[in-house]
């Protein structure tokens, strides 16, 4: 069962298009949604929430077609976005009272626990809160509803490390239940790398890559090779970047395997070092290679390699 399933979702704006977005979040898992500013993260999340209607494509959330089934779906979704504010002239408590009346599953005890864990005073007006406190207050109003699906748009942006830790902790506490899921966008790749089961990269309105995190981190490597004068790199798939200087070649690969390593050794290269990449490095390399197709990137550097060899 999938918590979220998007198929060929398209949305056109005058200066921005969301193109054929496919996205699947299995129930019980966390997906980190990563992309530069303006890549289409917020638009995608709003379409998933039924707040914006797609021009084409199918969106199913918690078994409900969106936007038609948005009421039924939203009973079980908690949404917090960076541009969402609580009522400034009202207290945190005002919001909690309001939501308690709406949601049958509202958990008062948990809300009280979160107030103390987030160090928030329910009698304080929202306009007097710091940025971090506002974000925590907004997240609190969602956590205490105990929704099946949490959709957070940039929940940790602009927060200090302590506040970030507290929030990630709470998100992971949600995941103790097997039927609850989280989709969150961020450009903090560290947070995404830490708690996500699945990772999706988006750039310029298109999904660049989407996979489970362990596969992501396992399949990307940077290899340092030492090669002879006339060395030619064998054909390989998933080659993202080739940098050559003198007798050294640094390869960035998306499809690393032991077989590939053997192939390189057989081609006459000495493998000096095999490095794992952080999610941030993978993200940047993915975005850069999506701007120009990987073959063009490899072909582009090939002549210069031969030039260096000649």
């Amino acid at each position, binding site marked *: 069962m999938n918590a979220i399933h998007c198929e060929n979702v398209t949305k056109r704006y005058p200066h921005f298009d969301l193109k054929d977005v496919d996205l699947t979040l299995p129930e*019980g*898992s*966390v997906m980190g949604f990563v992309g530069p500013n303006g890549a289409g993260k917020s638009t995608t999340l709003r379409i998933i929430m039924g707040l914006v209607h797609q021009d084409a494509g199918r969106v199913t959330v918690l078994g409900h077609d969106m936007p038609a089934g948005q009421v039924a779906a939203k009973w079980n979704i908690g949404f917090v976005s960076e541009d969402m504010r609580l009522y400034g002239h009202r207290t945190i408590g005002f919001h909690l009272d309001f939501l308690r009346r709406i949601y049958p599953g509202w958990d008062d005890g948990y809300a009280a626990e979160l107030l103390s864990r987030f160090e928030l005073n329910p009698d304080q007006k929202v306009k007097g809160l710091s940025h971090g406190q506002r974000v925590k207050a907004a997240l609190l109003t969602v956590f205490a509803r105990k929704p099946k699906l949490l959709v957070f748009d940039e929940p940790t942006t602009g927060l200090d490390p302590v506040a970030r*830790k507290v929030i*990630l*902790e709470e998100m*992971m*506490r949600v*995941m*103790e*239940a*097997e039927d609850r899921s989280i989709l969150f966008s961020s450009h903090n790749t*560290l947070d995404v790398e*830490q*708690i*996500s*089961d*699945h990772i999706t990269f988006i750039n310029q309105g298109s999904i660049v890559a989407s996979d*489970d*995190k*362990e596969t992501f*981190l396992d399949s990307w490597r940077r290899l340092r090779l030492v090669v002879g004068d006339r060395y030619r790199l064998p054909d390989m798939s998933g080659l993202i970047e080739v940098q050559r200087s003198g007798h050294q070649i640094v390869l960035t690969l998306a499809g690393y395997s032991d077989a590939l390593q053997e192939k390189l050794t057989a081609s006459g290269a000495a493998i000096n070092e095999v490095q*794992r990449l952080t999610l941030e490095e993978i993200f940047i390399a993915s975005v850069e290679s999506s701007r120009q197709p990987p073959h063009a990137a490899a072909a582009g550097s090939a002549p210069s390699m031969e030039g260096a060899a000649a």
Partner: protein
Amino acid sequence: MSTQIILSQADSRPIYAQIMDEISRRVALGDWAPGYRLPSIRELAAELKVSVITVKRAYLELERAGVIVTRQGRGSFVSESMDVDDVRQEELERAMEQAVRLGEAMGLGHDDLAALLEQYTRNDRR
């Protein structure tokens, strides 16, 4: 229940490997005896604030290595049939490997390392 497992972001090993090492060490030291019930994958993920898939992978590889066994619907346990000495041996080898790598990085040769080892074993005996 808290496992007191501490992960390091500065550690170059992947997180799943860190979790495996931490659990293996507890087993090797006898703190987690054969038959000891491990926290569930989701419990440990919540405690460590790392993704479920990462803990799942650590458990899978520990299972493959014979350190733990997972019984469907009942949870994961430290393997009863496992030879604790084997795990200790592995733990020792890991430590040695790390020492050698560190030595190499410092430019120490085989003889330097051997001398160091000699020195440490002598210190221990005293």
